[in-house]
């Protein structure tokens, strides 16, 4: 381990270093993650933001090594509390999954088994990781269900997933994930399948539990409103790469990468003068045959010949990282416009 990495480990609970995750398909190799690097610090809430298909979910699955059979992380390192998870034997990964890093899935209905009661699904997980008997595990499960706001948990624990509403199912998943008191919670679009009022409730529960348990959060979402309210830092993904990283407030206030700027301009805002929302021209890159160099360059108004070579994620200012050759010009242009 290099000195630079060692110093990083002192602050980070998770450090993803230059990972490449590929999928073999009939049409060719899909380069879902192409040199992704980012970190999550202790007790910090980090947002992973990007359009559909940019590699957000693949990142979470690469971290926990639960990729589909045709997928593989071919290069890179994923350090969790200083241990490279990609080299960890499978039997030790079982200790990490659930107990150290919990994953909250996007669709709560498909994440729960329809033929098992909530009791069985929660007790199984608790018993596997803790030296507790059936009744102690059930007691713990009921306690967690109460904390996430399930009414009458003593009765409802024997219900099946179809007897719960969408928001309740997501609460069950949160209760199950947090029953083992993990140190890192990966929430993969936890509110996408829910309606707006329930979204707010679920996010509040995650926030409260995070504060109570002091855990780190990796919040994967395409909803910029959700990250703005619930994260300390964000990593912007585009085409399987990180294009910009930094504190949430700063990025929302002063985005540096053309993609981040375009993304933020596509959100409706009361204080904006333009009547029409801006859209990003073109479409998301095909990851089987992506454009050379910067993957955003075919859609970028600042693109030049140099953009056909790959930009690295460079430190721009304190805690701000941008992968763009034209940051200065972008900022100048923004200044002149404003």
């Amino acid at each position, binding site marked *: 381990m290099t000195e630079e990495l060692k110093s990083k480990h002192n602050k980070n609970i998770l450090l993803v270093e230059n990972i490449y995750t590929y999928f073999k398909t009939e049409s060719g190799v899909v380069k879902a993650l192409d040199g992704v690097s980012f970190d999550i610090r202790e007790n910090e809430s980090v947002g992973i933001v990007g359009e559909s298909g940019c590699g957000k979910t693949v990142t979470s699955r690469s971290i926990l090594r639960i990729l589909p059979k045709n997928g593989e992380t071919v290069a890179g390192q994923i350090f969790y509390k200083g*241990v490279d998870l990609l080299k960890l*034997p499978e039997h030790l990964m079982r200790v990490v999954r659930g107990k*150290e890093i919990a994953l909250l899935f996007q669709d709560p209905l498909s994440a729960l088994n329809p*033929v098992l009661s909530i009791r069985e699904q929660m007790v199984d997980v608790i018993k596997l990781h*803790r030296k507790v008997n059936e009744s102690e595990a059930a007691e713990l499960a009921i306690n967690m269900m109460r904390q996430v706001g399930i009414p009458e948990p003593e009765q409802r624990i024997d219900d099946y997933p179809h007897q719960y509403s969408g928001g309740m199912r997501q609460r069950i998943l949160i209760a199950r994930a947090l029953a083992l*008191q993990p140190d890192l919670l990966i929430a993969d679009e936890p509110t996408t399948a829910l309606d707006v009022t329930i979204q707010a409730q679920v996010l509040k529960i995650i926030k409260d539990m995070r504060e109570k*348990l002091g855990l780190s959060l990796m919040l994967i979402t395409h909803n910029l409103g959700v990250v703005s309210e619930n994260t300390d830092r964000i990593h912007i993904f585009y085409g399987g790469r990180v294009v910009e990283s930094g504190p949430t407030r700063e990025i929302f206030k002063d985005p540096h990468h053309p993609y981040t700027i375009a993304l933020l301009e596509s959100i409706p805002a009361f204080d904006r003068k333009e009547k029409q929302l801006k859209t990003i021209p073109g479409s998301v890159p095909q990851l089987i045959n992506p454009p050379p160099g910067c993957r955003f360059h075919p859609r970028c108004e600042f693109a030049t010949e140099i953009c056909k070579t790959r930009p690295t994620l460079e430190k721009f200012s304190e805690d701000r990282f941008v992968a763009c050759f034209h940051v200065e010009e972008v900022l100048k242009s923004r200044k002149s416009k404003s």
Partner: protein
Amino acid sequence: MTSINSTILEKSLGQKVLKILLRILKSMATSPTTVWFVSLYIFGLLSMVFFNIARVGLNQDGIFGGPYYYTNLFLHFGLNNSSTYQSPLLTNPFLTTLFAPYLAIFFGMAFFMIPNAGRAFNSTGFSPQEGANSFAFFNQDVYGFEISFLFPKLNLFYIGIVWLPIIASSIITIYYKNWLSRETSLVSRSIINLIIAYFVGVEFAKMTDPNFKYVWQNFIPSILSERRNQTFVVYSGQYFPLMLMTILFFYQFIPIIVMGLIENGYKSSKVLLQTWKHRSVSMKDITTELPEEYKNIDWLTKNITDNKSVPKKEV
């Protein structure tokens, strides 16, 4: 030049129409609904051949006589027993072979549902000998046909001629539609069932009045008149054909329900088996073996040795 262009255009348009028609025909031919009717027919026919061989032995009549025997059996049931009407379903070998499996399933289903129908003692006043002579076809010479499992209607005759083709074709269709990711169409099945129900219903009705006919010019006045005064359907037999069609049509929802039950049963069992398999793998004890290189990692050691029996934080 214009005429050449228009010819090319017409040709290409014609070709396009032909292509679309071929695509629709292909889609219909390969649809799960078609597979359902074809497999029902094949299994019904095979079942008839098998049970007819069991009845008369392995000879020409045994192999080829099944469709005629069972069509005759059902068409001459009950009050049709002494009918002399020569139905095309009996006189035309092609129609006999084409309709026999459907007819057996349609009437078999009806007799299965009607109390006291379809077995030797199907009403009061029949002597066992009379019953054996007139209704013995339900167990005639076939070993096991008279054996009732659980209740009289569940004898080998119904199992073999009615339920076996329905269950077998259901399994084939379920497998096919899951493989193709296409659903059977309830509307198409109902329409085809209605057509078959009408045809066999009319033929059954004609057994007691071969002069059945429609008088179309009386259609509208008949709609506005009482049932007894209607002159549109001229029929004086025992089984009113349109009523038969309606009853037979509704009975055909039973095979549709059977298929749904088989499919749901299969899916549920699959999920249960997968769950059992998954649980048996995922609930294996987490090994406490810690390789040498990881022994100095505190959090990992603690997890392995203590198995985290004490919560890290108070919740």
